[in-house]
């Protein structure tokens, strides 16, 4: 007996709908993967007894970003990075990597992460090859000697593969640390102060390597440093952290928009001045208040208007300094001009 044509048509339609649904779901997942954040940190805090090392820190890092994590020594960069790598447990807040919660998917996540944390400390009594072999095995890799030698070749250590690490210079150890971080082909590479202790050639090599990882290998890189000029050259996005708190986050072009400028206005009573300004039209431009100066962000052609209005508001300005480099910008935000001035004198 033949089934009615309409019923067969319905079945085909149902089948087609199911296929379209399935495909669209896959496309959506694929699209989601493309645009999702590799790192999502929300309201992260870490307290060590009486010290707040990190306070209410939130930020996100997108796929293929070179994300600069900037701050002075002791600002909370390493503590945050250690929390991302599960070395330290947060007091509060959540961390998601690749869309998964770090607490509940630790192993899955760490399989896709490679890191160099502060100094590249390795087993000094083992050779470079043996160190690489150990950590590759720990990352769950099936390893062939050629693969490891290629990795050592990439960082320029193939000819010293069998030398004990104790005979290595700081720069060589750093390169071996990088090889270990990359040996399991991770999606996310975390580098904590990677240029510390390197000579100028080593710093340039490291910069090129980070750019290579991002541009050619499409890796997401989170790199922390207190060297702003280095960050300026490699980062696509940045977060500035001070005393454990986020100061500012954004793309380098946003932070360092040539049309905009940062101005430091030195005054004898910054708190009172800030109170007056916060009630007027310049309130949204006032970014930070320090003991002896205010920090404004504004369009370059607004500079004279601001200066005029401050006079109208009876705020005594003793110095008015546009900040024209990221480094000065950073120092103006973190209030460390006095240290620089002390050295300058």
């Amino acid at each position, binding site marked *: 007996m033949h089934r009615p044509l309409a019923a067969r048509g319905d079945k085909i339609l149902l089948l087609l709908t199911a296929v379209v649904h399935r495909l669209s779901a896959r496309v959506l997942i694929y699209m989601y993967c493309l645009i999702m954040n590799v790192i999502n940190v929300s309201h992260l805090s870490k307290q060590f007894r009486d010290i707040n090392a990190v306070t209410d820190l939130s930020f996100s890092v997108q796929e293929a970003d070179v994300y600069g994590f900037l701050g002075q020594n002791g600002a909370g960069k390493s503590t945050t990075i250690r929390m991302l790598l599960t070395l330290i447990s947060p007091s509060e807040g959540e961390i998601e990597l690749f869309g998964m919660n770090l607490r509940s998917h630790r192993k899955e996540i760490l399989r896709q992460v490679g890191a160099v944390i502060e100094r590249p400390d390795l087993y000094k*009594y083992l050779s470079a090859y043996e160190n690489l072999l150990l950590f590759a095995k*720990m990352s769950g890799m099936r390893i062939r000697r050629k693969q490891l030698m290629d990795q050592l070749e990439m960082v320029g250590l193939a000819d010293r593969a069998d030398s004990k690490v104790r005979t290595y210079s700081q720069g060589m150890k750093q390169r071996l640390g990088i090889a270990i971080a990359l040996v399991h082909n991770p999606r996310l590479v975390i580098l904590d102060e990677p240029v510390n202790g390197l000579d100028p050639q080593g710093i340039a090599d490291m910069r090129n390597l980070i750019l290579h990882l991002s541009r050619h290998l499409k890796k997401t890189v989170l790199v922390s440093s207190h060297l702003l000029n280095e960050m300026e050259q490699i980062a696509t996005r940045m977060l500035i952290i001070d005393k454990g708190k986020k100061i500012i986050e954004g793309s380098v072009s946003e932070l360092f928009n040539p049309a905009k400028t940062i101005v430091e206005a030195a005054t004898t009573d910054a708190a009172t001045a800030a109170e007056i300004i916060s009630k007027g039209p310049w309130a949204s431009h006032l970014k930070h208040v320090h003991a002896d100066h205010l920090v404004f962000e504004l369009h370059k052609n607004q500079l004279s208007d601001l200066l005029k209005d401050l006079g109208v508001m009876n705020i005594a300005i003793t110095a008015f300094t546009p900040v024209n480099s990221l480094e000065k910008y950073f120092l103006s935000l973190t209030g460390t001009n006095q240290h620089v001035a002390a050295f300058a004198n």
Partner: protein
Amino acid sequence: MWQLLQIELFKIFRKPRTYISFGAIAAMVIIVQIALKFDGQSYIEFILGSLKETLDIPYATILNGYFVCFIILNLLLIHIPLLIALVAGDEVAGEANMGTLRLLVSKPVSRTELMLAKFFATVIYTALVLAWMAFLSLVLSIFIFGTNDLIVARSNTLEIINRSDIMWRYLAAFAYATVALTTVAALAFMLSVFAENSIGPIVSTISIVIVFTILSEMQIPLYDRTVKPYLFTSHMLGWKGFFYLKADAEGVSIPGTVENLPAVMRSMSILLGYIVLFAGSAIVVFKKKDILS
């Protein structure tokens, strides 16, 4: 887990300090063997005390491989804990000191797995140290001195064990000694979790073993009842129980027996309990520890 264990064993046996124990044991055993080879009679007279005046002692028969091994075990098993602590105390603290701990913990292995691998690697190292000691003190002594019945001096009597009834006792004694030394290893391993360099846990372990041994040896009735039964050092020499035989109604030793096997087993259970306690505490603490090194 198996791979982690292999990695940990690889690291232990590539460290030069690991071989200090093997070298020290070889040196001590050989020194004792040389001394007994050339002046064994004096030593036997010394341990027999006044018995030598009442009995006709067959020195050449007594001084055999089994007897030498028994002497070596008595002399060395007190000091081997120091050598075990040297490696066990370095397991976590040494990694923290080198800066490699943060690299290990940031790898996709759980902290419990990592600690279990480290602990089992330490246990294997301890067993190998004992195996090495067994080889030198038993096999080498048999090779140098030959075999015969074993005479064991007790407080008031002499225990004579037939040569065919000895080997299993040594195997049991070495197995027991492995458990006893693993207790020390577990203690050093636990202390290692709290430290950032290995000197602290090694010295602390040695200090604890010395203080506990003194307490175990003191003949004070108050401590005998309240403290001694709970100290792991009171049970570390329980291996000697395998060399004390049951006697029949006429006071003749019964071959193949152990005088007080339940007491030996109880001591072993207490040591195993300490191992679980120390290793378990190390894992629990490490799981929650912030790695700041």
